[in-house]
């Protein structure tokens, strides 16, 4: 469904130009859930933004559903690929009601039946009709993230790009949102590309994952490899140890990786 080869992404010009993503490549099958894991500055979100068409300074080969992506994207692409952002407080328009926020993509894509679509999608994300005419400030963080998921779902996409969808939420709310995402994927046979810094979240959600560090891909693992600890790269091992909590002796052996 998604195929990325030799992706290079640059920011800036001349002397300040930085090479944010270096020769990254991976493929995701239809209906699969694939994870990108890394620390800040690893380029994981940059890859996602690039696929979504938010960045133009890139080179390499990207294909979605057999169609090669160019620097500009057409309407058909956005019907197929939608994105959910990290911060549910920043990604919803504060002066638009939920109804208006959800109707906007329907209007842009001229799908019709806006009222019915909004009602249906709100039901799907477990919010129901009573939230329809509220403003974002009248919702909690978890509810807002559900609205963000609803906005992505309303166009019936095949691929959803998830950029740290739960990192701004409490663990109890995180569990609810992760469950919702799992259910929707199974029901609609969606393809997920999930970015997270949390190894446990990615392991829970995805059957394969790519570990990234400083713009380079470190290794691709399956969920069972991660569970067994069958890891070949030192960087991934360190990440795994770090995700298991505070252990004074292990920390002294941490090193920096280039």
């Amino acid at each position, binding site marked *: 469904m998604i195929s990325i080869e030799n992706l290079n992404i640059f920011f800036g010009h001349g002397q300040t130009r930085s090479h944010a993503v270096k020769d990254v490549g991976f493929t995701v099958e239809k209906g699969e859930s694939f994870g990108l894991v890394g*620390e*800040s500055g690893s380029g994981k979100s940059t890859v996602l933004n690039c696929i979504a068409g938010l960045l133009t300074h890139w080179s390499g080969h990207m294909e979605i559903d057999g169609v090669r992506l160019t620097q500009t994207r057409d309407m058909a692409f956005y019907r197929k690929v939608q994105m959910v952002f990290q911060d549910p407080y920043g990604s919803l328009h504060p002066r638009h009601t939920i109804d208006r926020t959800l109707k906007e993509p329907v209007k842009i894509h001229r799908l019709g039946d806006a009222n019915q679509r909004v009602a249906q999608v709100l039901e799907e994300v477990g919010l129901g009709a009573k939230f329809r005419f509220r403003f974002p400030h009248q919702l909690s963080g978890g509810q807002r993230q559900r609205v963000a998921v609803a906005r992505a779902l309303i166009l019936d996409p095949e691929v959803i790009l998830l950029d740290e969808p739960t990192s701004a939420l*409490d*663990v*109890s709310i*995180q*569990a*609810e949102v*992760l*469950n919702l995402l*799992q259910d929707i994927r199974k029901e609609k046979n969606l393809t997920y590309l999930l970015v997270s*810094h*949390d*190894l*446990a*979240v990615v*392991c*829970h*959600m995805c*059957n394969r994952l790519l570990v990234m560090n400083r713009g380079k891909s470190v290794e691709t693992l399956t*969920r069972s490899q*991660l*569970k067994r600890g069958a890891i070949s790269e030192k960087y991934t091992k*360190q*990440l*795994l140890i*770090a*995700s298991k*909590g*505070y*252990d*004074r002796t292990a*920390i*002294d052996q*941490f090193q920096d990786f280039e």
Partner: protein
Amino acid sequence: MAGNTPLLTVNDLSVVFPSPKGDVCAVNNLGFSMGREKIGIVGESGSGKSVTGRAVLGLLPPYARVTASDITFKGRNLLTCSEKQMRQIRGRQISMVMQDPKYSLNPVRTVGNQISEAYTIHHKAGKKQARQKTLDMLKAVRIRNPAQVYGLYPHEVSGGMGQRIMIAMMLIPEPSLLIADEPTSALDVTVQLQVLAILDDLVQERGMGLIFISHDLALVSSFCDRVIIMYGGQIMEVVDAVNLHKSNHPYTKGLLGCLPKIDGNPDHLPTLVRDEAWLKPPPKCFGRGTAL
């Protein structure tokens, strides 16, 4: 507690914020006592954990109504201290590390300058001595080239280094109690652990008490000696960190259960079912104790 007299005792602490829709009770009849140990306060957002830390130091805004029957630090009643006396305690006796170095450091002064100020305010020392002390402290928080970092401005340092600078600044007056309010939540996992290791070593070396406020249950249980679990402004339970996983309280169990685990199964995560009965009856926060 190691059998000695407690460092800090808090009894019946309540904090009420007035709002147009009626009073909001952020902390309700909270009490705990600690010695020179690492104690963790864990809870979700809005559970009152940060407000508790700030109330001890008297750092809440004036419109907040803080009442308590007792806040005793080293035998001294903090409730009766004047603002001038509190200034002697803040920093010198009890200091606080905030969450994000980006917002807590002064952007227009060099970090060395800010750290040595923290020292000279509380100790009689000349400029030269303060500079030397600052360099030693920067070294203690494992900054490799202290002399160079001394002259840097906050925007020139990374998040991990910024947090270590904050810790250096808070520890340089040699306080007996450190309150760390989510000191590492903005950092990457490996850097987070490295910063915690520094904090851990320094706290042990100096025999300080540490109140570690965090939302990360797994981290707190592996880092602290005892854990206070808060919900809705009240203490749900206080457990030894090693026994946290054996806890019987439904809230603690619920919080632990809904964490995704690497060795867990990829099916549905259990979700937390909240129960009104966990919370004690509505607060009677007013008219008791002395206002801070």
